[in-house]
């Protein structure tokens, strides 16, 4: 009898794949022109410097060619993308004030419940604008600021700081889609954690892109001052359409001396999404950035959170998992620049590909001449669940300092027969054995997530084993 391959099911996205009507929404014309950029700025009543910044970014965007090293973005035609869609509501501080259909969407995604259970504050963005933003009084009393970034930009107290930091870690000249973001950014959060302040519960922003053929370009700016501590969670989802949607957000994180920031993301965009997101952190002396990253959705993904360690003994860690199923080409990984003595970096990633999906781990570790005594370890494991899929590993290391210790290990393969055999010898069926192995493979990432998110991740992976064993 022929042996039938056991199957691992695709991610069940029915939880996220529902659409709301756009009735009453304001939608700017598709395409990318100076007029559209100016109109976005006008609607937001921005200071002049921001409009100039946007128009300059648009020029840079138009001067850049498409990237040639990653997945094709030929299906992304900006002439078919609406860069600004405003829902039929303004930002509220209570869920009761949010229109029912939008509120129901976030209810189905579990956001208000999570807020009640374990979060210190929540921001919810729907298409191009924030529709809900709130933080517990206790956090406010600690001096923590968590608001929409546009709201903060209109406060004299914060405008100067935002202007000083905005798109300095991710300048529009960084790459084509950083320039696009600079031109049409809309929404996103601003977080300021004063020196010495430690928030015990996480803050969370959730981004929902409902509009068909639209882009979401939120900007997240977080400043964690010296000796402060924050956990920030980011989630995102969208319903599936047959046309391209685009996400080109930007996340800029400033981590002060001896400060700590954990940034957790579960990315679950729909399979028509081009996720061209940029995230970057600068870490000062004895500070630490922890990235926890799960990438499950999108048709095409380019995502490489970057840590720039500028202070002595600054640390970064990246723990990530990427699951690429049918039709997905997810190019993910991380970048680290070690630019100060005795800095430390650890990278641990897991990649799973199945059903013809393509998963690529791409990384760079750059050790500058100033980083004497730097230590970095990179561990990358990829699991192939069938012979239709693809998994590539492209790690780069550039070391220019003496007395460093840089280690790299990577493996690609399928579930080992020896492991299955061992578990079966303990009375476990082959299907169960394979499921246990795959769950164990993903576990190092799951255990780093808040419980609710770990559950969501397991739900996302939903590794159901089926098929006859011959």
């Amino acid at each position: 009898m022929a042996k039938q391959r056991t199957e691992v099911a695709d991610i069940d996205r029915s939880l996220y794949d529902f659409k709301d009507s756009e009735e009453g929404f304001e939608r700017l014309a598709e395409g990318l022109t100076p007029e559209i950029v100016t109109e976005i700025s006008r609607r937001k009543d921005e200071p002049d410097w921001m409009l100039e910044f946007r128009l300059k970014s648009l020029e840079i965007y138009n001067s850049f060619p498409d990237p040639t090293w990653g997945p094709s973005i030929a299906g992304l035609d900006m002439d078919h993308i609406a860069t600004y869609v405003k829902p039929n509501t303004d930002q509220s501080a209570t869920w009761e004030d949010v229109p029912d259909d939008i509120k129901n969407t976030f209810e189905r995604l579990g956001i208000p419940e999570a807020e009640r259970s374990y979060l210190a504050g929540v921001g919810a963005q729907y298409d191009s604008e924030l529709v809900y933003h709130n933080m517990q009084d206790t956090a406010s009393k600690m001096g923590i600021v968590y608001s929409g970034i546009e709201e903060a930009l209109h406060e004299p107290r914060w405008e100067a700081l935002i202007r000083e930091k905005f798109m300095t870690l991710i300048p529009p000249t960084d790459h084509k889609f950083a320039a696009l973001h600079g031109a049409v950014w809309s929404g996103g959060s601003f977080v300021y954690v004063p020196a010495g302040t430690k928030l015990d519960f996480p803050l969370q922003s959730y981004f929902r892109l409902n509009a068909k053929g639209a882009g979401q370009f939120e900007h997240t700016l977080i400043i964690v001052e010296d000796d402060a501590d924050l956990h920030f969670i980011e989630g995102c989802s969208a319903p599936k359409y047959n046309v391209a949607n685009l996400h080109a957000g930007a996340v800029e994180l400033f981590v002060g001396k001896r400060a700590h920031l954990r940034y957790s993301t579960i990315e679950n965009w729909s399979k028509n999404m081009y996720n061209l997101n940029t995230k970057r952190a600068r870490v000062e002396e004895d500070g630490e950035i922890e990235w926890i990253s799960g990438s499950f959705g999108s048709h095409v993904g380019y995502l490489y959170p970057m840590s720039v360690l500028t202070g002595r003994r600054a640390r970064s860690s990246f723990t990530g998992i990427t699951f690429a199923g049918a039709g997905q080409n997810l190019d993910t990984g991380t970048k680290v620049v070690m630019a100060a003595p005795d800095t430390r970096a650890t990278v641990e990633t897991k990649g799973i590909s199945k059903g013809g999906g393509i998963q690529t781990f791409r990384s760079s570790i750059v050790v500058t001449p100033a980083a004497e005594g730097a230590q970095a370890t990179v561990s990358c494991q990829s699991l192939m669940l069938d012979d239709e899929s693809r998994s590539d590993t492209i790690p780069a290391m550039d070391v220019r300092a003496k007395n460093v210790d840089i280690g790299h290990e990577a493996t690609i393969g399928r579930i080992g027969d020896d492991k299955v055999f061992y578990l079966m010898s303990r009375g476990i069926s082959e299907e169960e054995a394979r499921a246990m192995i795959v769950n164990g493979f993903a576990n190092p990432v799951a255990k780093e997530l808040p419980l609710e998110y770990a559950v969501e991740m397991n739900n996302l992976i939903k590794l159901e084993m089926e098929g006859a064993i011959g």
Partner: protein
Amino acid sequence: MDALTIRNASAMPAPTWGWLKMNNAEVAIPAGLAPAGAVDVDAPQELFDNARPFEVAVAEMQERVDAARGEAADDRACLRAAKTGGTHADADGDLGDLDVPALSRYQERACREEAEGDIARAFETGMGHDARSYLNFLAGEPVALGTTEGERARAVVRVEGEERAAAAVALDVVAAPDSELDLVIELDGTDDFGDADAAALIGSELRVFAGARSRVNVTVYVCALPATVVLDDEGYVLDEGARLTVRHVVLGGGTTYTGLAADLRADGARADIDTSYLATGTESRDFAYTVRHRGRKTVSNILANGVLAGTSKKVLRGTIDLVHGCKGSEGTERETVLIASEGVDNKTVPTILCDEDDVAGNHGATIGHVRPDQLFYMRSRGVSPEAAEALFLTAKLEDAALTAPTEGARAAVARLAERIAPDFDIDEADEEEAA
């Protein structure tokens, strides 16, 4: 000859971010080099007599591969994507079949090559087409060597540079089934240069077809002078059960490029590549290795071990490509780099491309200085950290000298040692080894 720049040489099959400046090399050929220099091929007459054209050997293999190839339709999503050029939106922005992934350029090329199954078209050398053309132009008519079925033979090829001159050899080798060939290539510049800082270029262009169950052992020694540009470009096609062993010893030369591409086309083929390098002063080393596993149960090992001193630079691009259908294959890549000085620039991109599930791909890299436990041991024996690091440098030379395949290679190492490590005594090393 005018100055010449070969762009996109030694390119990675799967590129990464351009800002890292690792994707490829730009080879600057100095101006004013006359085509001169000595090329000497020392081989038994039967190797010349039995020579067969490389293209004929590949064409014969193609016939066998085509005959064995099934007609079964392959409807994998990546092949569908390659046929349509990936996902493109139509005039209305419709993406069409969302189960087709949007392939990158290298993934599309890989799918196309897989669908074509054309060995000759897929043939490549490590440094790429333009460098190959330049070396073939410089070398003139290739030297063709062929082994006899079941026989073992040895050939030594020496290319000796001259000041303000460029010299290269082009070699076409066809190893008959069940034969064995030891091929030594010495790329050297003598100290007879009137001006040791005078520009020079030496190179070697090698194509090898390794017949079924043959063994091909290639050793390349590079001990050129600090102002010499060295180009070593190699391409291999391995038939069923063929085994390739390559040893690259790159100790000298101002700017050296070593490129190797191996096509493990048939089942059971194996390639073992062992590279040892040293760079001092402002020298630069560039390595580009690509091993494509296409046959089933093929094996590759890429090992690189080097010492970087002074303000030297090194790039290693190593790619193991596990092509769809190479079931049961395993590719491993390991690198150890000792950084002995401040100002060194060490770049490494150990890539694994995997389009098959029943395979294993592994790579590891360790980049650093002398380990604390090693330093402690040395200190306890009265050896300072600086002296300990110098020991690693001379150890490279010692190992190269003791394992040199020819007297010529050994003499070249000795000359190099005199220049960069005057305290190193090759005879003393010999005696210690004997003891």
